[in-house]
């Protein structure tokens, strides 16, 4: 067991974890934050994507103890003071989700992308979400949502 302390959705948290425990399991089972989903066992689907210091990572590929003293943000921490993030708003407006299973990871990956640049083309967005699988939308409305969110952020 390792004593772990990190910032989760803006607040400092402390917890003891097994050495082989994955970040996705710790977030889901120990902090009861159930937004992120585990959709595969090969780090292919990206449904578990969270932000680590503002950058999207697949939390099934991160050992919990690796986030010591780092900042982790999940979908639950994204809206501030009840105000939705532009990416969240855009997903609703553009119908960027259907069954919703990929959505928490997809939104966080979208936020990560837009954190990195505010002048992404459609094809750069497609490449940027390549690690996140969606089976419902054909990606079109997700790409539209991220383009819209980029517009909103740049306003």
């Amino acid at each position, binding site marked *: 067991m390792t004593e772990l302390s990190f910032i989760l959705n803006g607040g400092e948290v402390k917890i003891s974890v097994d050495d082989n425990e994955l970040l996705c399991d710790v977030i889901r089972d120990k902090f009861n934050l159930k937004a992120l989903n585990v959709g595969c066992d090969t780090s292919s689907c990206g449904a578990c994507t969270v932000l680590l210091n503002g950058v999207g990572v697949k939390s099934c590929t991160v050992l919990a103890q690796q986030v010591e003293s780092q900042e982790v943000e999940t979908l639950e921490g994204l809206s501030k003071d009840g105000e939705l993030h532009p990416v969240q708003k855009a997903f*609703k407006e553009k119908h960027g989700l259907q*069954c919703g299973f990929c959505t928490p990871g997809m939104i966080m990956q979208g936020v990560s992308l837009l954190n990195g640049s505010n002048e992404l083309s*459609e*094809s750069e967005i497609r490449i940027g979400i390549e690690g996140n699988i969606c089976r419902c939308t054909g990606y079109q409305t997700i790409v539209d949502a991220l383009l819209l969110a980029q517009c909103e952020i740049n306003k």
Partner: protein
Amino acid sequence: MLIAPITMNAESYIGKRIERIEDNKFITTGATYVADVKGGSELFVEFLRSPIAHGRIMSLNVDKAKASPGVEAIYCSEDITLVDINPPIPLLNAKMVRPYLARDRVRFVGEPIVLVVANSARNALKAIEEIEIEFEDLEAVVSLDDSFKGEVLLFDESESNVMFRSDFTSEDGDRFFDGCDVFAAETIVNSRVAPCPLEGRSAMASFDGEKLTVHLSTQAPHSAKSTLLKVLGLESENVHVIAPDVGGGFGAKIGTYPEEILVAYVAIALVESDGESPNTPKGLKSVRWSESRNESMISLGHGRGQRQRIEIGGTKEGRITHYRLSVMQDGGAYPMMGAFLPFFTRRMVKGCYDIQKVDFMAVSVATNTTPVVAYRGAGRPEATYAIERAVELFARKAGLDPADVRRKNFISEFPYDTGFGSVYDSGAYLTALEKVLDYVDYKSLRAEQRKMRNMKDSNKSLGIGISSYVEVTHGFPASEFGSVKLNSDGTIFATSGTFPHGQGHGTTFAQIIADELGLSLEKIEVFFGDTDIIPRGVGTFGSRSVQSGGVALSRASKGLIDKTLDLMKSEFLDSSVFFESGWFFVDDRKFSWEDIARLAGSSNLECQVDYAADSPTFPFGAHVCIVEVDVETGVVVIKRVVALDDAGRIINRLLADGQVFGGLAQGISQALYEEVIYDENGNPLTSTFADYGIPSATEFTKFERLEMETLTTVNELGAKGIGESGTIGITPCVVNAVCDALSHLGIDHIDMPLTPFKVYSAIRERSS
């Protein structure tokens, strides 16, 4: 009951693009899937699955596993007291019976053999490693031909491997095509694919000594309840099925799987044997199972899996007069819906064309592979693929433009009885095709193609693919339940027996109710997926929901108005009472729904409707796909996808777009990327997302969608279904485009998926 078509005006919610009401939780805290539902003291189920495709279990010892840390119970086949599973449809081979856990014999890699219950999933998996098992290998039956030959039988009880037969052939046999100027034929494969809902199967069950509660990731919670009642022998009031949010289904979650039933069975068995457990306290236990992706890839049902012989003949002017489709369906190891898919293929065998002589025959056979089930379109994409490839080959043989051949052969009068179990309700196939061809400027595209072919040193070849399709939705019209109830604050609580798992019925149905009652959308809540709250229901599949559940709610809304009018008439005797645009008028006074709620007090203003449509509906459309094929590498790049899908009245344009786009992606993906592959010993080679061709955003281009609404008269909404149309039309369209790009090289057909390797190999074979 005949009801006048709905009337609409500028204020109507129906027909608009409206954001989903249900999205707020999805984008803030995430949805609640079965794995997110909190249970009582939790136990976890995992399965030992067969590592071989076909064999006998020679010895099985679970003693060590029983002593493994955290293990609560272990079940082998002989510990399960349930009656074995019969095929889901009476027309399937009744001798092919499936035990819940493999008994003596295993028939596919992934078949469950032992069920382990432990205090954590991890401990259950560790215990599985302690199970000692020995097999005697039997020859695996993987190919359709081997199965049909029947030298190795999957079931000792059955004298053949045939699961299902359908024969609609004339006596003409060899002379069937006599007199045709033009004849084309090809054997083509509609590849086996994995449905891949992003949430795999998941079940959680608890039993309090009397009542069984099951949370299930399903498309049809009421059907699941019926299955559980029948299998477990419980009374209706003692089974409660709850489908929380469900992360996709695509047909694979219509039926209830052995693993899911076993979770419920174990929940009951553990309570009945309570008191002996060392690991968990007495009291309510929740037994849960959520499959891994690997489990899902090998034991959730697969889709498609047909080999087809297409033969087509007609005049040199391009009139198609003869068509014969012979299907061999891979049913997998046990008969499920997959074995029955040819039935749906047969119904749509003619496609959009008025062909005089058509023969159809099909055989479904068992193989040592994962059972095949329904997958988005279920039998109809296979029919469309066959006829649209056949028309293409016919046009090529006749030296005619494929668009012209379609124009000459479309069915144009409705209703149209195909003679194969379908009566097309309404359609405008020619208009649909002309619209897409105009939109892409087909003539100029052909000119550009010629120009490119004449350019020397160009390794790029342009391909233009067309498909016209008609499909059947709500194929077996079954009664669907809907209720609309006035709350005490004047808002509406409605329930439906359909079950959305991504489609957004919560918004679509609220639009229908809001228009009928003259209320604003936010006053309406539509609730799904709980068999204790919703008395009856069927579920969501086969693009049935709007035309069954939506119509039921439309009628229940009308019924609520009538009930309210009756109440008003009894309150205000001798007054004129009528309802208009959300208001009840009584002489010179008017009452809102809020007023009514106050007036009604405790009297229950609710209307329940069970609505069964008289017949299915037949959406149709035309797709165009433009590809560029690199003839040196075999790489196919999709340049444009244009889809016109006409499903009658569209309730919510935003959500209809979503259904079409998602369907297009799955259909394109089958054409280019996806295929479930087995080696000759029945080992699955595509059992994770790392080996299976699951597409990402970079595999697709922006889809262009054209709208058209040819209403049906089957229901007063005028609505058909749109959940599967994209998948049905686009797959042959893409293959037609790629084959069109290679036509000058003498390549008529390449089987899906059209990977660079396959395309390159076909080109090389031709040029050497």
